[in-house]
């Protein structure tokens, strides 16, 4: 088991170490993920319902009221 894990580790370690173009691509991926999850998600894309209500019942109540209030012919 440990031998298998070691060989898997070595496979990935050597794979990453021998990368040339891959290093640039990984840099792009990491910068992109940082911008998406740390900048955009936290500062620009909060969970609209999650940040306003604590329970599922409160969220259901809010959306239910929205559906009723937005009806064009009340």
């Amino acid at each position, binding site marked *: 088991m440990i031998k298998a894990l070691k060989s898997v580790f070595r496979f990935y370690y050597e794979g990453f170490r021998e990368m040339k173009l891959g290093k640039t691509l990984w840099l792009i991926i990491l910068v992109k993920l940082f911008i998406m999850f740390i900048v955009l998600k936290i500062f*620009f894309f909060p969970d609209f319902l999650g940040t306003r209500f604590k329970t599922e019942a409160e969220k259901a109540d809010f959306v239910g009221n929205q559906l009723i209030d937005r009806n064009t012919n009340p």
Partner: protein
Amino acid sequence: METLDPSLVDWSRAQFALTAIYHWLFVPLTLGLGVIVSVMETYYYKTGDEEWKRIAKFWMKLFGINFAVGIATGIILEFEFGTNWSNYSWFVGDIFGAPLAIEGIMAFFLESTFIAVMFFGWNKVSKKFHLAATWLTVIGATISALWILVANAWMQFPDGMHFNPDTVRNEMASFWAVLFSPVAMSKFTHTVTSSWIVGSAFVITISAWFLLKKRELQLAKRSIKIAAVFGLLGTLLAAYTGDSSAYQVAQKQPMKLAAMEGLYQGQNKAGLIAVGLLNPSKKSYDDGVNPFVFNIKVPGLLSLMANRNINSFVPGVNDLIDGGYPKVSKSGEPGIALSAEQKMEKGTLAVLALKDYKLARKAGNDSLAKVNQAKLEENFPYFGYGYIKDKKELVPNVPLTFYTFHVMVIIGMYFILFFILIWWMNNKNTLHSQKWVLWLSLLGLPLAYICSECGWIVAEVGRQPWVIQDIMPANMAVSQISAGSVQTTFILFAVLFTVLLISELSIMIKQIRKGPEGLN
């Protein structure tokens, strides 16, 4: 009644469209190029010819660049669901969540596990294992697409669910009805096969560039050999599945079909427009202005496509608004189509029943709650019509839907001839000397992308105003946030996507110029 800033809906839609269009630059190339790379590696496995390995590795590198830059661009769509479309996200519940979760857990892990073997595994694992990893990466990517397309298809044809008025959510009643909905199946097959065209056009465009530069001749010719056959297969299958898709649209979203064809007055033995120019003076479906400046039709073909009967009636925009034409119901019973006003009345009844249900529940009056629940269920298929102010809102943007549909079809037809020509010339070994064909081939990739993006514009613009067909329009789905914040993130995305696209293109072009490792 709550008032919404109309620009909020427009900006939210524009932002979603921008993100989806950008995301769709990467997905079809992954799906198409992935299969081509796998076929090339299969040739290497079968023949042991090192040239095939070199060819497969070259295209695999380009596949990797596209995969890396495209990865996680779809996540932004999920951010938008939670922030801009929170009513929608809550309302769809696990119907939408389940396919996305399966996509994340199953397909994405399959894809990401085997892609490591695909790139790190040359000379480290056996040829057979490496080939299996390459195929499994592509199969994983295709299964990923399946789940996303199942979720999208449910929005076009909501089925297999039950609306729970207590949780205000749609709950899945039948997983299999959602997965095997005819719309999901035709959408999946059409999308995947059309992605094969993008992959093939990519390979042919770059190979043609090599031939023009008189470089990598063997690589280019062998690559074209695979891509031309695969592209032709993809185009023929996309035409076949496109016909199934159009049939499903005719049955489930007849307004979209009417917009695709610029059909205002329904007809028996309706003709399919081969080419046409819409009349820009036509501003509304009921203004009496002739919708076309000119058109050339194939008689009866639209009726055949829509109902599998050349003499059948295809309703136009006016018929769909006015109702009153003979129509077969979902359960297969003959009846008369409802007018937009009748549907709007039913929608309002459904929304009021939800309101009265909630009041009855709050008051502890269970019998009254049951009565209102029954009324809600009876009218729920028209729930979204309760949010339509003017029946004109029910007509999508006809020029955009019409032109994108016809551009898609014309380019699709062109590709059948193009792939046959390229395959034939390559087989005769004359392609490299035919400069005009090589220059024409350089247009292959941009045309394939235009065709693919047009398909999505038809699918999404043609179903407006619905986010979920007949049940939820866009103005009910959006969150009550400021339009300014959506504008800000729209601009941020436009900048981010442009930078990412430039970086991808520059890396890709650099690698193409370098060619396969070790030759020069």
